[in-house]
């Protein structure tokens, strides 16, 4: 009941902060298209669309619209979790959040859910039209599956994102500039635009430690093989992702507690 109420109130916040800024909402809708056309424009100036399809095995428009949609999902989670303590600190809401009866960890877990839901809805304006245009009814099914997997990839990232946010704040202090480092790193490490099999070993190992990267792998497999993944394969990837997300749970809880204690020792800015 309490979690449900928290999700409702966070939805209110997303509604206010995002939907009442129409230009932000438009950017959100346009983002997958902008990224797709940018990559295809740069790519075709050095290679060709046919060459990409022959090598990767999928239409580049489908590949990059799916990748950009997923990046938007991941970005939403990372931004929400990393940004929220900094934002709350800046606008002076942090003291009221911390002195409330809701544990900070619970709030951080709940924060990204409404935006994730909104991003999933945006799949109807990006993934579904493009996939249906190129592949008809089959494309509609594939895009729906990709949307679902994208949402799951986002959800599974929450605990790791909290751990990352708290660790960065503990070690380096809080700065919105750090987001500019974390965002592209996530883009690379999750294998959204750059498949994991092509990564150098060290980077691949780090990638394996990210819960969402396994779901991204499953999604890329579905996209490239143009068929539903076998049950065992799907369960292995989803299981690995879920197990990692759960394993990060206690670590991220403790990191939230440590950050809270550090902040309380220094004093919350009012």
């Amino acid at each position, binding site marked *: 009941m309490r979690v*449900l109420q928290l999700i409702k109130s966070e939805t209110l916040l997303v509604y206010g902060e995002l939907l009442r800024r129409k230009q932000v909402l438009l950017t959100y809708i346009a983002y997958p298209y902008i990224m797709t056309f940018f990559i295809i424009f740069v790519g075709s100036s050095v290679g060709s669309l046919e060459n990409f399809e022959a090598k990767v095995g999928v239409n580049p428009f489908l590949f990059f619209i799916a990748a950009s949609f997923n990046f938007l999902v991941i970005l939403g989670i990372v931004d929400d979790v990393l940004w929220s303590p900094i934002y709350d600190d800046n606008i002076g809401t942090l003291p009221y959040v911390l002195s*409330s009866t809701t544990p900070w960890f619970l709030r951080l877990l709940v924060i990204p859910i409404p935006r994730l839901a909104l991003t999933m809805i945006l799949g109807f304006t990006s993934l579904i039209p493009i996939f249906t245009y190129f592949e008809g009814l089959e494309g509609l099914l594939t895009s729906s599956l990709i949307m679902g997997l994208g949402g799951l990839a986002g959800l599974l990232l929450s605990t790791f994102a909290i751990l990352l946010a708290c660790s960065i704040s503990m070690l380096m202090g809080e700065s919105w500039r750090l987001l500019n480092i974390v965002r592209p790193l996530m883009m690379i490490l999750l294998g959204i635009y750059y498949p994991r099999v092509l990564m150098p070993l060290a980077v691949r190992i780090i990638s394996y430690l990210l819960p969402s990267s396994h779901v991204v792998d499953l999604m890329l497999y579905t996209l490239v093989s143009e068929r539903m993944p076998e049950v065992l394969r799907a369960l292995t990837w989803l299981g690995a992702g879920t197990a990692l997300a759960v394993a990060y749970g206690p670590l991220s809880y403790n990191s939230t507690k440590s950050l809270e204690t550090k902040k309380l020792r220094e004093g919350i800015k009012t």
Partner: protein
Amino acid sequence: MSDEAIEVIELTKRFLTKKRKGLLKSEKLIVEALKGVSFKVNYGEVVGLLGPNGAGKTTTIKILSTLLLPDSGEARIGGFDVVKEASKVRKLIGVMLSVEKGFYGKLTGRENLVYFGSLYGLSGAELRRRVDEVMDLVGLKELEAEDKLYEEYSTGMKARLSLARALLKDPPVLLLDEPTLGLDPMSARKVRDLVKSLALRENKAVIYTTHNMFEAELVCDKVLLINKGLIVASGTPEELKNKVSDIKTVVLQVRRAAGNLNAFLSKLADVAAGNIVTEELDVDYVEVKFNVRSPEETLDKIVKLLTVEGLSMNSFKVVEPTLEDVFIYFTGGKTS
């Protein structure tokens, strides 16, 4: 629940700050914000924490709000320790830390309260009822500001909303840090009246920090004078004034002309009891305020000093000490 709403025992807090020395170098400084503060607040009582900037008022409020860990000492709210039992304390307190910020600009006043109400554990019909009640109580309904975006609020509305948030869960203890700072007289009065009635009618314990003496005298049942991290005097406003009853305040209007005001003031320090406060009235006149034990005897000395330094006196008044004079007497003349 304990009989005493708030009990603070020998609270200390030190901060490590850095003093910049050029581009790369900095020097570490230790600031002692609280040096052993102790006091008690009962239910139904408004206690003013009065002190100049940097005296330790906000530090005390932050510790009581569970937003800052003390170095030593104890603080209890409703019998619960603010450090070891912070989650229980949070259920008992309503906090107002800033008048002008602390809300989401793109949400309306009502939506902001719903949001924070959820964080405070309220939900459903109870949440809606409480939001309605507190908005009515602080006068936001009267101003038709409930469904206005927070970013469109005036300072007075923001203060009222901040107080409404503090009252959302109907807490028995209110911690209000300078709740009327920057408000117009009407809004400030509304806030003061509300605080007073909450203590009187709903038996709430209130800590009210301010550096406005007039306000402290109006609102507070008891005043704690805090300076440099220490409580230097405490009591009701009347009791505090009685503490300096043998002292009278002399208000002198001096005409500068070609005389040496600084020399006069330095010699006056031998005559005055405590500190001397000066205020420029215009280019020619300066008001000099100081406490003396026997005004009749000192008048003669003052006239002599003025003559020696080439100054003349426009007026000479002896008044009963106000809370401000008590404050000046105990804190060393640092009014804000």
